[in-house]
């Protein structure tokens, strides 16, 4: 009877992941995974919004200029609306996306993952004035860089979060290969790692696939060249018959 195969050490997959995911536990007892957006995409989204606002105001002033005092009154009302309400109106009425955020694939949500409401959106956008201090968003940038989920001061006070909008992923197909029996009973995260390897193999180069599979050649007790086929076979077995 062959000796039981050596298992990959328990630490291999179980270290806390070094990433920016933000977990929200719901009353149903599941963890929702949010991906907070960092400084650069947020700054780009802001730049886009700034350009749009500038264009709107420029066009409005050109169009309202000939109307004299009435035009000036309307223009200053419009200036007020665009300065203070552009962000709030878009965020609340458009699922947390201003046009800039939409373009960058970002979204504002409450800390618990629900869509941002009037109170929170108003808070975070009024307090933007403080983030701007002392010049050019200095406080906002410092706060954003120092916070684990990249919040600026307005986000801290309002309890909001800027996250990446989720996109539907295409369904990958597993390679056509015969299922092979499992050499040991893998833990849940080990199963996921094996399946992830099989699902992503189409996007990896042959050399990289071999290198990755080679890590497990020892524990699987196969020569390094066969490790890849063996792993894919095991993944097939884990998926079950189609």
């Amino acid at each position, binding site marked *: 009877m062959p000796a039981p195969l050596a298992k990959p050490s328990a630490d291999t997959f179980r270290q806390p992941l070094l990433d920016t995911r933000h977990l929200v536990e719901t009353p149903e007892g599941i963890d929702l995974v949010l991906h907070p957006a960092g400084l650069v995409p947020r700054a780009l989204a802001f730049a886009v919004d700034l350009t749009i606002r500038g264009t709107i105001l420029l066009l409005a002033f050109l169009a309202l200029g000939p109307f004299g005092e009435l035009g000036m009154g309307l223009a200053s009302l419009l200036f007020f609306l665009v300065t203070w309400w552009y962000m709030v109106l878009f965020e609340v009425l458009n699922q947390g996306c201003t046009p800039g955020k939409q373009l960058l694939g970002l979204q504002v949500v409450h800390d618990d993952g629900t869509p941002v409401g009037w109170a929170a959106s108003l808070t975070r956008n009024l307090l933007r004035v403080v983030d701007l201090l002392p010049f050019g968003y200095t406080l906002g940038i410092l706060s954003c860089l120092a916070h684990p989920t990249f919040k600026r001061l307005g986000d801290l006070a309002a309890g909001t979060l800027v996250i990446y909008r989720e996109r539907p992923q295409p369904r990958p197909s597993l390679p056509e290969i015969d299922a092979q029996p499992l050499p040991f009973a893998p833990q849940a995260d080990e199963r996921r790692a094996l*399946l992830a390897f099989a699902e992503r193999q189409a996007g990896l180069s042959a050399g990289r696939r071999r290198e990755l599979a080679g890590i497990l050649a020892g524990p699987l007790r196969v020569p390094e060249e066969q490790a890849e086929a063996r792993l894919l076979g095991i993944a097939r077995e884990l998926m079950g018959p189609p």
Partner: protein
Amino acid sequence: MKQNSFEHRHQAEWQDFARRLDALERGRPGADSRHFPAAYRRLCRHLALAEERGYSSRLVDQLQQLALRGHRQFYRHRNPLGARCLGFLLGGFPRLVREEWRPVLAASLLFYGCLLGMGLLVYLFPELVYSLLDPGQVAQMEAMYDPDASRLGRFGERSSAADWMMFGYYVMNNFGIAFQTFAGGLLFGLGSLFFLLINGLSIGAVAGHLSDIGYTGTFWPFVIGHGAFELTAITLAGAAGLKLGWALCAPGRLRRSEALRQAAERSVRLVAGVLFLLLIAAFVEAYWSSMTFPGAALKYTVGILLWLLVAAYFLLAGRPRHAPE
């Protein structure tokens, strides 16, 4: 259970759930939305199973996205805006101001203290006005309230179409000041203190100076009407900012971030009330205060009535007639 058979068994259900989510997100819940909570909980169960059994990331991610979208629809903070606004203005806002009497009192003392103190000082020692305002600004103020002008206010002589311009200008200017006063509270309250102080001092200086040079007949009837709303609004914006600052300075038994979040939740409602007051102030200032044909006596009467109205609103409105059930 193997992943493939799990997927085969529930695939139709997930697609159905995604279809319902699409409808809900477009704001058109179908007839079967009554069953949405049950469907959402089943999906959560499937997600928990998929994670526990170590199914592939692709499936788990797909279920997680569905769960996230379901969570958003299920726990969305509903806001029927119209009804809530009305309730807030009729009762919620004055109640909130009474509950937050500490920051409101502090902001009022600071603001009105500076205003009255500076006004009195400038009235007694006229040259003091130049310690705060430069001569150009003072001359501008004098021109605005010159008793010979037919219409008053920040734009002097103008046609009736210019009421629009003034309205726009007042909205932009006053809302800007109020928002800054509020937001400054995030700097440990210092910003709010600063803006309350500066606004109190400069308004006091102008009032003292214009009274001193004998423009009382134009200045006071002009400002008394909208002052009731404008000064109250600035005070309340300052109070909202001070509340933020206080939460940062003395968070009590909470973490600072949590204390700030809770304070901001209430402060922003104060600011919503400030918006309402400022809107009234801009209307009164543009369309009533600037008119010269009502005599000074009528202006004073209406002004005092407006002050009493504001006071009564904050003291009396929103008190329940019956004991709460």
